[in-house]
């Protein structure tokens, strides 16, 4: 929890990792990609405050002690949500897997939520594995990485007919939170790899599921906002938006937040540090202190203490059924819907 000026914030970090990207874990012949990937992440860390930067060796592989200290002891996080990223084409034991996450989570019951994953390209075997994982880990969410490479295929979409049985299985098993990575990706090559239209399609088809678009679709935040404003079950995962912009580009951060508050609304935005790209501590502190820099931003929705409490933890707690002690709750349920205006002009706009 975080306390500032007499206000108490229950912090759910919606996006954390415990990865191993050390050279020992690089797949032979794929070193260029394994090395490039983690170096790319490391450069992102450089967008945070200088005193929070790590040397690349620590960044490739950090310890459980580092994790506990950075996330729980220093980082104010009450509950962290592990979102796995396998990338087994590049990393022998995977980059950041549910199995590894679960071993750490077992040592911190009630503090860590382990999300699973699935891949429609695995077919029937994948469905069985999802059932097993749901049973073993008590899954309430999955992280989908539509850009992941697999046996020569370099990605898939939620529109693929092969994805439908998996979404149905999630609904059946109560895995209601579908986190979709729509952030920096590479493939497919001849289209815009950041397309979020497949989420739109799935969100309409499965209203009983929540779709959390990670990294708010950056760098296609406009497409994400247009979609989210029309789908009641689409949420904005703020990981990367806070880490990459709040410190390095505060005015752009203010504009991005203003647009998200306008189009998506404070009830559908979820904080995520993306640890270990960035430590949660400076992000939580900075976000609680944050406001628009000047009156050039007066056109955007106001951000209040209540907005910050929702975004930092209460919204995610609702989606995951996390018990939040009374002292952190808002006095009355005040929902502030975002823009519901017709976004039909959007298609014509770009």
């Amino acid at each position, binding site marked *: 929890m975080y306390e500032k000026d007499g206000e108490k914030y229950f912090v759910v970090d919606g996006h954390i990792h415990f990865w191993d990207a050390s050279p020992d874990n690089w797949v032979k012949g794929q070193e*260029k*990609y394994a090395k*490039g*990937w983690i*170096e*790319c992440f490391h*450069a*992102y860390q*450089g*967008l945070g405050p200088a005193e929070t930067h790590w040397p690349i060796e620590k960044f490739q592989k950090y310890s459980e002690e580092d994790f506990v200290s950075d996330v729980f002891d220093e980082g104010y996080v009450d509950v962290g949500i592990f979102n796995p990223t396998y990338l087994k084409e590049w990393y022998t034991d995977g980059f950041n897997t549910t199995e590894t996450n679960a071993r750490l989570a077992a040592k911190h019951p009630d503090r860590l939520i382990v999300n699973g994953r699935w891949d429609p390209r695995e077919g029937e075997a994948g469905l069985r594995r999802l059932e097993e994982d749901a049973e073993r880990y008590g899954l309430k969410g999955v992280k989908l990485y539509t850009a992941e490479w697999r046996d020569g295929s*370099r990605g898939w979409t939620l529109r693929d007919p092969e994805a439908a049985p998996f979404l149905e299985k999630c609904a059946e098993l109560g895995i209601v939170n579908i986190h979709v990575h729509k952030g*920096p*990706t*590479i*493939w*497919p*090559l*001849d*289209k*815009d*790899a950041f397309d979020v239209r497949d989420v739109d399609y799935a969100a309409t088809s499965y209203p009983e599921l929540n779709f959390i678009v990670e990294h708010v679709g*950056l*760098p*296609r*935040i*406009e497409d994400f*906002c*247009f979609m989210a404003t029309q789908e009641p079950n689409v949420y904005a995962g703020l990981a990367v938006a806070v880490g*990459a*912009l709040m410190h*390095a*580009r*505060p*005015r*752009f*951060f*203010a*504009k*991005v937040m203003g*647009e998200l508050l306008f*189009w998506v609304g404070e009830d559908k935005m979820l904080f995520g540090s993306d640890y270990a790209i960035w430590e949660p501590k400076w992000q939580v502190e900075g976000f609680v202190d944050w406001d628009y820099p000047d009156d050039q931003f007066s056109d955007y929705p106001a951000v209040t203490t209540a907005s910050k409490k929702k975004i930092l933890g209460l919204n995610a707690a609702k989606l995951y059924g996390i018990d939040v002690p009374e002292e952190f709750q808002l006095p009355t349920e005040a929902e502030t819907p975002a823009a519901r*205006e017709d*976004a039909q*002009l*959007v298609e*014509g*706009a*770009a």
Partner: protein
Amino acid sequence: MSIRARVLDALGTVYDPELDEPITSLEFVTSCDVSADGDVDLRLRLPTSQCAPNFAFLMAADARDAVRRLPEVRGVTVLLEDHCTDDEINAAVNRGQAFAQAFPGETEGELDALRRLFWRKALVARQSRLCEALLAGGATPEEVTARRAADLPDEPDARRCLELRGQLGIAREDDAAAFVLPDGGAIAAVDLRHWLRIARLIRTSLESNGGMCRSLLRVRYDLPNPEEIAA
């Protein structure tokens, strides 16, 4: 003007298709060496090794084309460095091959549709800056939408808008509307503020992506870190 200066000028007309900014001001040109005989050796860099290969290809290919067009240039070698698909891109671009030849079997077509999509976004974003300035100066929505292309100021956003309209096949003669929908259609005065809301979001996206790319490039190549650029 030296050949090198003319080469750099030519590179200033090559845009990052996603950000709609020249690759020179984005500092994507690492070096540009010109021999006495007019052979150009060009090195390019990007903010991350994982930047989208399609946009990387377009910039490398456009850079080669822009330089080759100069009569005093005898040959050009483009070397994109530190990118996860640099070998594929360099091999194809320097042979003058198309994108599909750089990545055989991995694409279904060329990049024209992708390029046009981002031209449309760029046009919306740049027009919105011009419109907002007019409204801030006291113009009514009716006055703004009644403006003609000939009324556009002689400044970078307006010049680029006309260039983009040319590329998109949208009329840009003096008596054409100053501001248009990206399909070339008219913007009704009554819709202007709503359109600007959407346009502002697109602009915020392009601008913040540009900011993030600049930040990442600085971190990656340890470039001097100037003051926060005003958004």
